């Protein structure tokens, strides 16, 4: 018999009763239990018709058992009581065999979480396959009407997360997310964008489709611009994929150990702490972790139990905190922060078109693709432009240009930010479009 009838509708009581069930079986000195469950639906379309269409019900219960400083974990996708008892036994058997862990930290005492309920939209959680198909049908019809090849995705998800430990910690969240991505291709032109929201009804599907179709038509017959350093206006969707690389590299341990762009060195180049408090970036750069942002309304806790609350990361271009794990915080005498997610970068009231209008000459980038480290220590990355790259001349989009490869120091890029637009949500981030004074392109491609 299954204790749960449907993962997405696991109520707080149902989810926490599964946590209790696991803790009840624990014979370890300490135990931590987490449940991740959900219903996810996603339709993909290409050439103006659906090519893949799925729904899936998932459930994972993970138990970490502790004997002194020894620990190990085990997980199962089966919610039956026998399976839960078995996974507890499995984690305990492994934990007894594990070596002593010099980085062990005691189980978390129950923290004070925010009194906030993440957004859960019933319609998003229960959108039917026919409704989803109908929404895509309209996007495909607009694409067909415009003569473009439309492709993309529409997804809806309902999540449940529940955690508990043998110190009395208990927490539960459920929330929804919807995402729409659209690419329009015609001849040698292409354009793309994406939006994420906590309600499917907040996705601007038809207006975004019209906008992307128009941009794809403008992107045909691209000219070649020589590689070099240019001012660049980034659409928010493109900028988000660069900001992510910066936020992933704000780990305190990497910085303190001399492995990060945030590392400080002494006069003999020996690693000596980090660069928190230094004016490293443009004073326009304000970045927060803010799961309570109206566009996000995300979880109140992290998977390890730490609270997910607002955190100032960069203020006026000055890094204010790094990401401290519980172990590293204890070692450095700091407060643990949890991970840097739900990133919100402040924008302005001006639309992206104003940034273009204020640019004498430069490049408009709609999408940053296949961004990867060139040098993880200095945070130099490479990547490609894609799906609509344009030359800006005298405050106007003058003509489309061929896609370019970039090799760019991200700390330099964030130092050179000189204008911001309004914000949008992409994935779990809220970011503006930005303009940077100089961005380095190294080669051209014919790829569309």
């Amino acid at each position, binding site marked *: 018999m*299954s204790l749960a009838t449907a*993962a997405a509708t696991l109520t707080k009581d149902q989810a926490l009763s599964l946590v209790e069930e696991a803790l009840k079986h624990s014979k370890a000195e300490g135990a931590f239990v987490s449940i991740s469950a959900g219903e996810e639906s*996603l339709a993909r379309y*290409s050439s*103006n*018709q*659906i090519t*893949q*269409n*799925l*729904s*899936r019900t*998932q459930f994972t219960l*993970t138990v970490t058992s502790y004997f002194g400083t020894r*620990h*190990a*974990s*085990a997980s199962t*996708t*089966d919610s039956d009581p026998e399976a839960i008892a078995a996974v507890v036994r*499995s*984690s305990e058997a*492994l*934990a007894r065999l*594990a*070596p002593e862990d010099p*980085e062990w930290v005691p189980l978390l005492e129950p923290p004070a979480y925010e009194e906030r309920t993440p957004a859960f939209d019933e319609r998003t959680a229960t959108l*039917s*396959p*026919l*409704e989803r*198909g109908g929404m*895509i*049908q309209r996007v495909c019809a607009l694409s067909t009407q415009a003569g473009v*090849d439309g*492709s993309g995705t529409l997804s809806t998800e309902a999540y449940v997360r529940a955690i508990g430990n043998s110190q009395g910690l208990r927490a539960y969240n459920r929330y929804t997310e919807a995402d729409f*991505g*659209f*690419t329009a291709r015609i001849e040698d032109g*292409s354009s793309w964008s994406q939006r994420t929201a906590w309600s499917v009804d907040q996705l601007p599907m038809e207006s975004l489709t019209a906008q992307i179709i128009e941009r794809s038509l403008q992107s045909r017959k691209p000219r070649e611009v020589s590689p070099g*350093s240019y001012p660049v206006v980034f659409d928010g969707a493109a900028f988000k994929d660069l900001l992510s690389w910066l936020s992933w590299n704000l780990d305190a341990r990497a910085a303190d150990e*001399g492995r990060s762009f945030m590392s400080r060195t002494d006069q003999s*180049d020996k*690693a000596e702490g980090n660069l928190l408090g230094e004016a490293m970036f443009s004073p326009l750069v304000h970045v927060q972790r803010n799961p309570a942002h109206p566009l996000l309304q995300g979880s109140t806790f992290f998977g390890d139990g730490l609270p997910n609350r607002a955190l100032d990361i960069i203020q006026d271009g000055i890094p204010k905190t790094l990401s401290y794990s519980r172990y590293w915080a204890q070692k450095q005498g700091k407060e643990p922060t949890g991970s840097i997610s739900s990133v919100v970068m402040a924008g302005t009231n001006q639309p992206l078109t104003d940034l273009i209008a204020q640019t004498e000459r430069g490049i408009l980038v709609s999408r940053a693709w*296949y*961004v*990867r480290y*060139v*040098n993880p*220590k200095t945070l130099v990355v*490479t990547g*490609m432009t894609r799906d609509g790259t344009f030359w800006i001349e005298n405050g106007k989009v003058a003509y489309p240009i061929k896609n370019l*490869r970039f*090799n760019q120091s991200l700390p330099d890029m964030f130092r050179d930010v000189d204008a911001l637009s309004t914000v949008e949500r992409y994935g779990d981030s809220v970011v503006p479009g930005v303009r940077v004074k100089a961005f*380095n*392109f*190294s080669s*051209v491609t*014919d*790829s569309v």
Partner: protein
Amino acid sequence: MVQAPAPNTATSLATLAIDLIRKAGCSYGEARFCTYHVQNLYARDRSLSNLADNVSSGFGVRVLLEGAWGFAASHRNTYTEVERMVALAIDIAKGSRLSQQTRVALAPVKAYRARYATPIEVDPFTVPMEEKAALLMQLNDRLLSYGERGIKKAYSFLNFTREEKTFASTEGSEIQQTIYRSYPGFGCTAVVNGDAQSRGYERAPLNLGYEHIQAADLLSQVDRVAEEAIEKVHAVKGPQDIRTTLILKPTNLFLTIHESVGHPTELDRVYGYEANFAGTSFATTEKQGELQYGAPWINFRADRTQPGGRSTLGYDDEGVPAQDWHVVKEGILVDYLTDRETAHRLGRATSNGCAYADSWASVPMVRIPNLGLEPGPEGGAHTATLAQMIADTEDGILIDGIGSFSIDQQRRNFQFGGDAFWKVEKGKVVGMLKDVTYQAMTTDFWNSVDALGPAAEREQCGTNMCGKGEPMQIAQMTHACVPVRVRNIQIGGPQ
């Protein structure tokens, strides 16, 4: 309510799913019941930070209703849930049908009733956990013993998987497969003079048992890896914005093959199915049999039957038998990587069996199989050992292992780094470099290869981290290859 047989096994549940799909009038349907047992150990410095034993079990059903796809999956392996998921998959197909302009059709496949199991010598799940943990702690201890000379970080890992899959289709197939996977590796970082540089070693991810771990081999590499990390952090930076000769070891070349040959020849990409995410391909179908992909001595062969290969199995996730075939022959693009849907679109008589789903909850799609660069023939005009390539090079760079990698969405413009770089001068390796990247266009690069290693230097390198699709799926494959020498390649560039 369908009266179900008593035993609640994967086979009986799959049979029920297929009966229900047939009764609903679908033109095609399949069910996959899978259990993945995954053991991961990861040690960071002197902490075994992750010791996890995870089991994921569930099923997915896919139906084709009037030419439109529907897929539904659940973790609950019960008769009731099978009924619910079949009904849901059919509802989803009805949603897909709303935008359908061209009905999906599939290349034919025979009905197979078969079993397959990865041949292994030692079941990794029977090896004591203490032994596995002790190996990782020993590796890290030895790496960190170089601390005085700058090695400040160490990591090591062991990954093991046993996948049990039962596949059944409305076409009469019932296939049971058990696939084992093993993967060990380690690395370290030297932090000196304000710089940090890493070096690693791995025994490539392969479908083998614990015999693949070879603790003695791993331990024998520790001193070399630590010494090379130290040398690398003190090395001069590589040249910028020059063109030179590259000599690439298989440990580096496999990723270049993966990105510039594997992905562009996935036929779903060619047809635009990935246009919104992973991208499309420059290697479009009118170029089949025409495109000079590489020099005439370049042959790329796909092979899902290769012993130990990470994508080696009996049947793909559409029940198509494992096969081997040329993708590029004597430098010419001759074939693609297909599933049944794309094979039909291309007009092939059958699929060549590249359908893969990374979970019971994922939809099968075209994935790169084992795809290798064939060795140079013995005595061939362009065949040379690695030592001969170096001895015959006036000025160049030798690269081992992988580092930075990036390629455009149609797979032309790529830029790769590596894990270790050495300057080659007047036929000799003269010292390490750091921070080197090479950039080229795919067909320019493969047409610039002037030397290939012999069969004796072939290595089964590969990856367990190939992302594609929405939702993202992670595939795993081997790219067995030999060292190559490539002329006149761009190094670095404007920064």
